[in-house]
């Protein structure tokens, strides 16, 4: 039997606070109350616009990427369905409900599908950065210089294609390296959505804001990974909203409900009704404030 080195039972970072310096601990329930301009629950719709190159690349394979040997037409086209059809269905659903969303957009989408970007912008929605394409994954194995180049490339291309520099960033699979937060700050970003440890915005040590995008409530997690129905997804979202509204009422102060959507998943004909019904329900609740990511961050920052 092999044995472990003595270092394995030594703990140099065992101390008050975290075993890193990226942000400080704080208890959500004891922070000063934040109030929204309307209602008590900020509902943040975030749609991912993804282009999967048919040959996977990057430090790790993005969730949803190709599965079968090249050329994997099955998954390539099924993903592209989201950009050709599903996203348009979502835009229509948003318009019907009178709500604005954030669109986490690969630079490649902005370049390849200008009609979609124009429709997103015309609808008053926000575009946030979502790397170059679905091969633009980041982790510590990428190396800091390559990561800096990747993020810089994504930001420059998105700025050119959309006419504006995004304020928000979503990493693919929310995976970062220890260098990411500083690179995002240096690129002029205000917030990222990768860390899911909180339910309100909070500030990293370097000043960047995290706007937590609950990954467990995403359509990818509930429908694709856990294989539940779209109606089950809708039920979980309603349960979450009810609890947050109750908590906001009891404790005072606003709460937020992030709703992460994927056009090739929730934008299918047999699932879109679940999104439409949810939007209609929430639009009828007095506690609801539908808001884009940048609006939530700005409102939160104004009260810090």
């Amino acid at each position, binding site marked *: *039997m*092999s*044995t*472990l080195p*003595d*270092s*394995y*039972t030594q*703990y140099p*970072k*065992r*101390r*008050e*606070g*975290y*075993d*890193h310096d*990226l942000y400080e*601990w704080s*208890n*959500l*329930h004891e922070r000063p109350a934040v109030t929204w301009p309307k209602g008590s629950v900020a509902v943040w719709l975030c749609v991912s616009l993804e282009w999967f190159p048919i040959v996977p690349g990057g430090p*790790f394979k993005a969730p949803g990427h190709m599965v079968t040997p090249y050329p994997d037409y099955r998954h390539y086209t099924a993903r592209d369905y989201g950009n050709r059809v599903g996203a348009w269905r979502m835009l229509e659903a948003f318009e019907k409900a009178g709500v604005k969303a954030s669109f986490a957009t690969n630079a490649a989408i902005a370049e390849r599908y200008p009609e979609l970007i124009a429709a997103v912008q015309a609808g008053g929605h926000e575009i946030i950065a979502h790397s170059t394409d679905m091969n633009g994954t980041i*982790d*510590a*194995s990428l190396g800091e210089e390559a990561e800096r180049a990747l993020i810089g490339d994504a930001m420059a291309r998105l700025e050119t294609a959309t006419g504006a520099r995004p304020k928000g960033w979503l*990493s693919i*699979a*929310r*995976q*970062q*390296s*220890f260098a990411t937060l500083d690179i995002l700050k240096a690129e002029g970003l205000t917030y990222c959505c*990768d*860390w*899911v*440890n*909180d*339910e309100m915005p909070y500030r990293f040590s370097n000043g960047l804001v995290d706007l937590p995008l*609950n*990954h*467990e*409530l995403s359509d990818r997690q*509930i429908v694709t*990974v*856990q*294989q*539940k129905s779209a109606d*089950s997804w809708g*039920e*979980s*979202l309603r*349960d*979450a909203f*009810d*609890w947050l509204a*109750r*908590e906001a009422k009891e404790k005072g102060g606003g*709460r937020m*409900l992030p709703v992460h959507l994927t056009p090739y998943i929730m934008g299918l004909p047999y699932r879109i009704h679940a999104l439409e019904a949810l939007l209609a329900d929430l639009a009828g609740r007095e506690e609801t404030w539908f808001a884009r990511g940048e609006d939530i961050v700005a409102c939160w920052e104004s009260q810090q």
Partner: protein
Amino acid sequence: MQEGAPDPGLYDYHPYEGRAKIEWPGGKTCAVWVAPNLEYYEIDPPIHPKRTPWPHPAPSVVGYSHRDHSNRVSHWRMAEVMTRHGFPGSVSLSVALCQHHPEVVADAAARGWEFFSHGIYNTRYSYDMTEAQERAIIEDSIDTVQKATGQRIRGWLAPALTHTPRTLDLLAEYGFDYTCDLYHDDQVQEVKVASGKLASIPYSLEVNDHYGFFVYNMSGREYAETLVKQYERLASEGEKSGTVMCIPLHAYLIGQPHRIGPFEEALEHIAKDGRAWLATAGEIVDAWRAQVA
């Protein structure tokens, strides 16, 4: 137990049929204990040759931050719901949490919860530890929890469910009363140890929220229904001889806004039923020990 033995020889076979009657206080038929895991996962732990802590090179953002949700947000949701319906916690504690986030440990202690050890961190694995290393984590656990809460821990749930063949013997030697590491029964059972005595209290992987949500892919409501079904059956069977139901939890899972509401309904159902003895692990082991000696 003997290293490399094909049968680890942990306990004798006792068929469920025809056992002596175990009686719980107040004539209750099912002892229900809730086991919140209060954990700390390191962002960049040393690599163990037999197990990788995270799916990505550090920082594995979703893995780390999801678990961190417990210590910033969801612990209080889970704890308040338990307190509201009269369920004490028996905490499987990553004891380094006493250093990292003493606020969370203090909250659990203030609610009168019992603590047992879940190792130093849930990112340090016991496989291949030397006896000296294993003694060190046991002694560290006893000392750390004693200093933080005044409690002498009585139980053990191995960090990330990792053991050595000597773990159970060492626990008995150090005077621990129970282990939560064996999943062979719905009643407390005797573990065969080298010296002293050690009880195995039913913990549960099957109705653990982690299994519910990530192995069986349940929705929050399906998990709540599962708990009620588990309880109803055990409460009924407990008329013959008292049963034990454990509800193992992780705040970052059960305390999410979409799950905590249905979970509260399940707790309310069990609390109001009348057949449940809402107890801590230590109380259940004591009541059992008093009847089997």
